[in-house]
C-alpha cells in the first residue's frame, strides 16, 4: 500500500474506533472512487456498514473481498471484525485457511487460521492446522494445540460417544511422540494427566506423578492436585492417599477439607473386601484416625473446625458400617461441636448432615438444643440461639407442624428478633444485622402458615416483618429475595420489580437469578397498554448472552496463547452452558408473549420470531438457575421455601419451555410463508451444529405435535387448556393455510425484489423466475380448496371454560391467579388473530375461495371478544376495589401480635401493596379492551 493511501486511511480507523460509522462510510466512498479495487477499503466500509445494521449492503462487499482471497494483515483483520459481526465464523475459517495456504511459511496466518477454527468450534480442522504448523515451525506448543484440539473434539457434544476413546487415544499418541518433557510446564503436565486419566492409563500417570517435579507441581497447583487425587482413586490407592493426607494434616497443618475426606476414605478403605479380618483392621484404623483427629481438634481449638467436624464424620461413617464402639459418642460430639462453634453462622449447615437421629438420641439432642440459653444480649449468644432454632426446626416431623405450633414459633422468633435488634445498632449501613436470620425464620414460618390455610393475612404479616427487617438491614439480599417471591404471589408485581432492581443484578447473575423476575412474568405485563418496562428488563438481562458469544471465545484464544490447557475446556463449557441456557430462552419466550400483546401482529414479526424459535427448539438446554440462593429454614419434612413460593404452585422448566415453543412454532409456521428452503437462502451467518440427539433430528413437523405427559406436568391447569386450544386451532386451520400459502419461489422472488429495492443489489443466490404473464396478485393453485369443516368444539369450549374459571378466581382474592387467567385468555385471542392473519386479506380469500372459512372464524372471534370484555370489566372493578381504603385497611389491620413496628410503617406497606395491585389490574384490564378493538374490526 502506498504511504499516501496509508495516511488517508488512518482517519477511517479513527472514525471506526470512535463509533463514527457514518463518517467512516463517507470517507471510504471517497477513497474508493480513487482506488476502486482496494480490498482494505472495501473491508473497512463493510465493517462500518455492519455496525450501522446495513447487513445486506455489507454482505455484497464482504463477498467481493472474500472472493479475492486476501492475505494482507490489515484486510484480514478488518474482515475478521466484519465476519464476526455477521456471525459468519465459517467464512472466517475459509478466509484464514486460504490465506495460510497461500503463505504456508507465515506463522501468524497459521495462528489466525487455527484461531478461526477455534472460534467456530471446528476442532477437527483446528487440529489439521496445528499439525501443519507443528511440521512447519517445529514448536512444541503446536503439538499441544494439536492434542488439545483432539481432546476438545472428543468432548464436543456433536461427537458420537464411541469416537471419544479413539480420539483420546489419538491425543495420547500425539503427545507421546513429543520429545519435550511434560514436566517443564504445569499446564502441559495437566493435559498429559487428564488424557491418562480418561484412558485409564494409571501407570503412566503414576510415573509422571511420582517424579520430584511432578510432586512439586501438585503441591502448588490445585488443578493438578485435583487430577492427582482422582488418579489415586482410579488406582485404588485409598489407603496410601489417606496416609499422605494424614502427614499433610499433622505435619504441614494442611486444613483443606479434601485432605480430611482422603484420611477418612483411607480409614474405611479396608472394608472394600468384606471379611472379619478387614473389619478388625478397619476398627483398628478407626481408633487411630480418631486419635489423630482428636489431637488436631485439641490443637486447633476454636480456630479451625476441620478436626472437630472430621470426628463427627468419622463417627457417622463408623455407625453406618456397624463399627461404632460408643452409642453416645455421636451425640457427645455434636454437643461439643455446638459448644465450640454454635456462635458461628455456619454451624447449622455444618451439623445438618448429622441431625437425623432416632429414639433416645433424638430426644437427648432436642432437649440439649431446647436448653440453649435463650438470652440474646450478646452477638455470640444470639448466633447460638439462631442456630438452635434452625436445627430444631429442621428436624420437625410433619405431624408437629400445625397452625398453632407454627404460630407460636413465628411469635417466638419475632420476639427474639426485636430483643436482639439493638445489638447491631452501631453497625454501618453496609453491614448485615446479626438478628436478620430471626426475621427470616419468622417470615418463613408465616409463609408456611399461608400454605397451611391459604389465608393471605400471613403473607401480609411476612411482608411487613421483612420490609421492616430490610429497613434495618439494607443489604440483606435474602430478605429481598423472599419479598420478591411474596409480592408476586400477592399480585403486586411492581414491588417485586422494585426489590429486584435494588439487588443490582449484573452479568452472569442475569442468567442465574433473573428467574426471580421473569418466571411467568407475562402475567404481570402491561405491554398491551404500551408499557414496556418488563420487556425492556428482558432485553437488558439478555445482553449477557450477547457478550458471552462475542467475548468468551476471545478468552479461549488467550488461554491457547498462554497455554493454559487446564482452562480451555472449562471456558468452552462455560460458554456452552451460558449460550444454551434454559433461562435465556424462557426469558425469550416471555418476551415474545409480551411482544405480541404490544406490537400489531404482522407477517414480519411472525417470520422473524419463527426463525429464532426454531433455532431455540434445536438447542440442548442447560439449567443454570440458582434456587439455592433463597434461604430455606423450613423443616425437611415439608416443602422448601423455594417450592412453597413458586408462582401458581407450578415450577416451570424445560417441559414448560418446550410446550410453549411447540405451541408458538406450530401457530407461526402455519401463519408464515417461510419454509426451510427459503430460510436457507435468506439467513445470514452460520447455522448451529447439528445435534446428535436422534430426537432433534426428526422432522420439525413431527416434533412440534408431540406432547409428553412429563412436559405438561409443568403447566398450570389454565396453561394446559391453552395448549389444547392451540392444538385444536392448528389442526383445523392448517389445511387452509397450506392451500393458500404461496409456493417458495414466489416468496423468494418477493424477498429478492424487496432487497434489491433497498440495497440496489440482487439477493445472492436467488434467481427470480420469469413471471410468465402472471399478475401481481396472490398466487393461485390449480387444485381445489380443502372442503370447509366446522371449527372443533375444543375452541369454543376453551373460551367457555376460561370464562367460568375466571369467574371463580376473580372473587377469590387471589390476584395473581386472576391475572394469570385473564392474560391466558388474551393470549388465546392473540394466537387466534395470528392464525387468521392470512385470511384478513380480501384478495387471498377471494382467489382461494375461502369466504366460508372467514365466516366461520368470525363468530369465534366475537365470542372470544365477549369473554374478554367481561374480563376487562371485572378487572376494572377489582382494581377499584384494590384501590379502596377498605382494601388498604384490610392489609394494615392484620394482627401482627407485636407492637414494635410503627403503625405508619405498616400503613405504608399496605398502601404500596394496594397501589401496586390497583395499577396492574387496571392496566391489564385496559390492555384487554385495547387488543379486542385492534383485532375484532
Amino acid at each position, binding site marked *: 500500500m502506498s504511504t499516501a493511501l496509508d495516511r488517508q486511511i488512518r482517519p477511517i480507523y479513527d472514525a471506526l474506533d470512535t463509533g463514527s460509522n457514518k463518517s467512516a462510510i463517507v470517507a471510504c466512498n471517497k477513497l474508493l472512487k480513487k482506488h476502486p479495487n482496494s480490498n482494505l477499503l472495501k473491508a473497512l466500509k463493510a465493517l462500518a456498514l455492519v455496525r450501522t445494521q446495513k447487513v445486506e449492503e455489507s454482505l455484497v462487499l464482504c463477498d467481493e473481498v472474500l472472493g479475492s482471497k486476501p492475505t494482507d494483515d490489515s484486510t484480514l483483520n478488518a474482515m475478521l471484525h466484519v465476519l464476526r459481526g455477521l456471525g459468519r465464523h465459517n467464512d472466517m475459517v475459509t478466509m484464514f485457511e486460504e490465506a495460510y495456504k497461500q503463505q504456508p511459511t507465515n506463522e501468524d496466518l497459521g495462528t489466525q487460521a487455527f484461531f478461526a477454527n477455534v472460534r467456530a468450534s471446528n476442532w477437527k480442522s483446528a487440529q489439521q492446522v496445528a499439525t501443519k504448523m507443528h511440521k512447519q515451525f517445529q514448536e512444541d506448543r503446536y503439538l499441544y494445540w494439536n492434542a488439545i484440539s483432539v481432546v476438545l473434539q472428543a468432548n464436543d457434544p456433536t461427537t458420537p460417544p464411541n469416537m471419544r476413546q479413539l480420539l483420546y487415544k489419538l491425543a495420547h499418541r500425539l503427545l507421546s511422540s513429543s520429545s519435550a518433557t511434560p514436566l517443564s510446564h*504445569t499446564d502441559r503436565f495437566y493435559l498429559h494427566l487428564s488424557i491418562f486419566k480418561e484412558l485409564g492409563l494409571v501407570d503412566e500417570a503414576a510415573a509422571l506423578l511420582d517424579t520430584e517435579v511432578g510432586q*512439586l507441581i501438585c503441591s*502448588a*497447583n*490445585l*488443578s493438578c492436585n*485435583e487430577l492427582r487425587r482422582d488418579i489415586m482413586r482410579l488406582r485404588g490407592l485409598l489407603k496410601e492417599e489417606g496416609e499422605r493426607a494424614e502427614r499433610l494434616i499433622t505435619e504441614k497443618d494442611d*486444613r*483443606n*477439607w*479434601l485432605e*480430611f475426606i482422603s484420611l477418612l476414605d483411607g480409614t474405611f478403605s479396608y472394608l472394600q473386601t468384606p471379611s472379619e479380618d478387614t473389619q478388625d483392621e478397619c476398627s483398628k484404623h478407626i481408633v487411630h484416625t480418631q486419635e489423630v483427629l482428636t489431637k488436631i481438634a485439641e490443637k486447633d481449638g476454636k*480456630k*479451625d*473446625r*476441620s478436626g*472437630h*467436624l*472430621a470426628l463427627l464424620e468419622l463417627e457417622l461413617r463408623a455407625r453406618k458400617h456397624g463399627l461404632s464402639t460408643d452409642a453416645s459418642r455421636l451425640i457427645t460430639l455434636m454437643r461439643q461441636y455446638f459448644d465450640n462453634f454454635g456462635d*458461628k*453462622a*455456619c454451624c447449622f*449447615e*455444618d451439623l*445438618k*448432615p448429622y441431625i437425623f437421629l432416632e429414639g433416645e438420641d433424638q430426644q437427648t439432642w432436642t432437649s440439649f438444643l431446647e436448653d440453649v440459653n435463650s438470652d440474646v444480649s450478646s452477638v455470640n449468644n444470639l448466633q447460638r440461639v439462631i442456630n438452635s432454632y434452625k436445627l430444631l426446626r429442621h428436624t420437625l416431623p410433619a405431624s408437629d407442624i400445625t397452625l398453632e405450633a407454627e404460630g407460636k414459633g413465628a411469635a417466638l422468633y419475632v420476639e427474639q428478633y426485636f430483643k436482639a435488634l439493638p445489638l447491631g445498632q452501631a453497625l454501618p449501613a*453496609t453491614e*448485615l444485622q446479626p438478628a436478620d436470620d430471626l426475621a427470616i425464620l419468622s417470615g418463613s414460618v408465616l409463609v408456611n402458615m399461608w400454605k397451611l390455610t391459604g389465608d393471605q393475612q400471613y403473607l401480609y404479616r411476612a411482608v411487613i416483618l421483612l420490609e421492616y427487617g430490610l429497613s434495618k438491614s439494607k*443489604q440483606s*439480599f435474602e430478605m429481598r429475595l423472599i419479598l420478591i417471591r411474596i409480592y408476586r404471589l400477592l399480585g403486586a408485581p411492581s414491588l417485586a420489580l422494585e426489590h429486584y432492581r435494588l*439487588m443490582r443484578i*449484573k*452479568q*452472569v*447473575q442475569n*442468567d*442465574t*437469578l433473573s428467574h426471580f423476575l421473569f418466571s411467568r412474568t407475562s402475567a404481570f405485563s402491561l405491554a398491551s397498554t404500551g408499557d414496556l418496562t418488563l420487556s425492556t428488563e428482558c432485553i437488558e438481562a439478555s445482553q*449477557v448472552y450477547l*457478550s*458471552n458469544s462475542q*467475548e*468468551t471465545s476471545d*478468552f479461549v484464544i*488467550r*488461554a491457547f496463547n*498462554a497455554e*493454559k490447557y*487446564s*482452562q480451555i475446556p*472449562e*471456558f468452552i*463449557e*462455560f460458554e456452552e*452452558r451460558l449460550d444454551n441456557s434454559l433461562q435465556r430462552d424462557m426469558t425469550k419466550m416471555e418476551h415474545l408473549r409480551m411482544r405480541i400483546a404490544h406490537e400489531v401482529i404482522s407477517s414480519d414479526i411472525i417470520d422473524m420470531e419463527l426463525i429464532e424459535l426454531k433455532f431455540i427448539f434445536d438447542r440442548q438446554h442447560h439449567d*443454570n438457575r*440458582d434456587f*439455592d*440462593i433463597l434461604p430455606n429454614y423450613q423443616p425437611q419434612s415439608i416443602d422448601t421455601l423455594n417450592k412453597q413460593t413458586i408462582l401458581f404452585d407450578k415450577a416451570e422448566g424445560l417441559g414448560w419451555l418446550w410446550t410453549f415453543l411447540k405451541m408458538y412454532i406450530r401457530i407461526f409456521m402455519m401463519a408464515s410463508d417461510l419454509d426451510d428452503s427459503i430460510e436457507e437462502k435468506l439467513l445470514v451467518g452460520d447455522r448451529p451444529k447439528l445435534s446428535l440427539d436422534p430426537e432433534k433430528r426428526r422432522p420439525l413437523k413431527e416434533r412440534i405435535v408431540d406432547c409428553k405427559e412429563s412436559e405438561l406436568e409443568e403447566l398450570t391447569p389454565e396453561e394446559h387448556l391453552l395448549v389444547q386450544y392451540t392444538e385444536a386451532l392448528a389442526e383445523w386451520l392448517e389445511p387452509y393455510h397450506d392451500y393458500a400459502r404461496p409456493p417458495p419461489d414466489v416468496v423468494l422472488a418477493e424477498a429478492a425484489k424487496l432487497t434489491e429495492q433497498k440495497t440496489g443489489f440482487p439477493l445472492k443466490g436467488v434467481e427470480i423466475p420469469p413471471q410468465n404473464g402472471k399478475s401481481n396478485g396472490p398466487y393461485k393453485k390449480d387444485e381445489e380448496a380443502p372442503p370447509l369443516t366446522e371449527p372443533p368444539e375444543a375452541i369454543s369450549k376453551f373460551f367457555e371454560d376460561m370464562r367460568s374459571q375466571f369467574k371463580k378466581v376473580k372473587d377469590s382474592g387471589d390476584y395473581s391467579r386472576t391475572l394469570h387467567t385473564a392474560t391466558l385468555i388474551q393470549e388465546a385471542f392473540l394466537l387466534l388473530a395470528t392464525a387468521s392473519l392470512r385470511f384478513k386479506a380480501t384478495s387471498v380469500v377471494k382467489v382461494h375461495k375461502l369466504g366460508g372459512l372467514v365466516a366461520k372464524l368470525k363468530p369465534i372471534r366475537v365470542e372470544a371478544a365477549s369473554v374478554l370484555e367481561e374480563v376487562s370489566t371485572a378487572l376494572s372493578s377489582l382494581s377499584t376495589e384494590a384501590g379502596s381504603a377498605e382494601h388498604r385497611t384490610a392489609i394494615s389491620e392484620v394482627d401482627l401480635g407485636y407492637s414494635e413496628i410503627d403503625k405508619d410503617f405498616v400503613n405504608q406497606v399496605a398502601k404500596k401493596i394496594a397501589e401496586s395491585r390497583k395499577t396492574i389490574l387496571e392496566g391489564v384490564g385496559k390492555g384487554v379492551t385495547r387488543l379486542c378493538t385492534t383485532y375484532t374490526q
Partner: protein
Amino acid sequence: MSVLRPFRASDMFKFNNVNLDIWTETVTLRNDNEMQYNIGFYLHYLSRWPDLCCVQEAPSGRMMGYVIGKAEGQSLEWHGHVTAITVAPEYRRLSLARKMMGLLEFVSDQIYRGHFVDLYVRCNNQIAVDMYEGLGYSVYRRVREYYGSLGVGKGGRDEEDAFDMRKPLSRDPSKRSIRPNGRDMIVSAHDVS
C-alpha cells in the same frame, strides 16, 4: 474447615451468595475498574494466572469465598498481587481469607518466584488492615483517590484512598520490598498500575 479448590469458569454460575454481598463490590475491587463483574474479568485472570485463583467451598458444595490474583511487575518489582478476595457473609470470622492468602503467597513464592505479595485496601477498612497486618503485611504507600468514583464520602479521604500493603517473600530475605514509614508515602492513583 472448607474445601480449597481451583476457581473454575463455571463457578460464575454459583457464586451468587458471595457476589450479592455489597462488600465484594466495594471493598475488594477498585470502583473505577470497568472490568469488575464482567465475564471478562474472571476469564482474563483465569486465562493467565489460574493457579492464583481459588475457591473455598463448604462440604455441602456452597461457595464460601474466593480469591483472584495475578503476577506482575519488572525485575525487583516482580510480585504476586491480590486483585479480589471475598468471603460470603455467613462464613465470616472463620479465617477463610487467611487460608486463601496463604495459598496465594505460597504460589507467588514457589511458582512465580515473586519478591513480595501486595494488595490494596480502603484506608478506612480498619478490620481488613488489622487482618493483613496480622498476616505479616505492612503499608508500603498510600494511594490517593484509588477508589475514585465514590468521591469524598462520610469517611473523608480514608474512604477513597487506598493503602498498598506488602509482604516480602523468600526471594527478598533482606526485606527490601517493604519500608517502615509507608503510611507517609503518598502517591496518586495514576502512579500505580
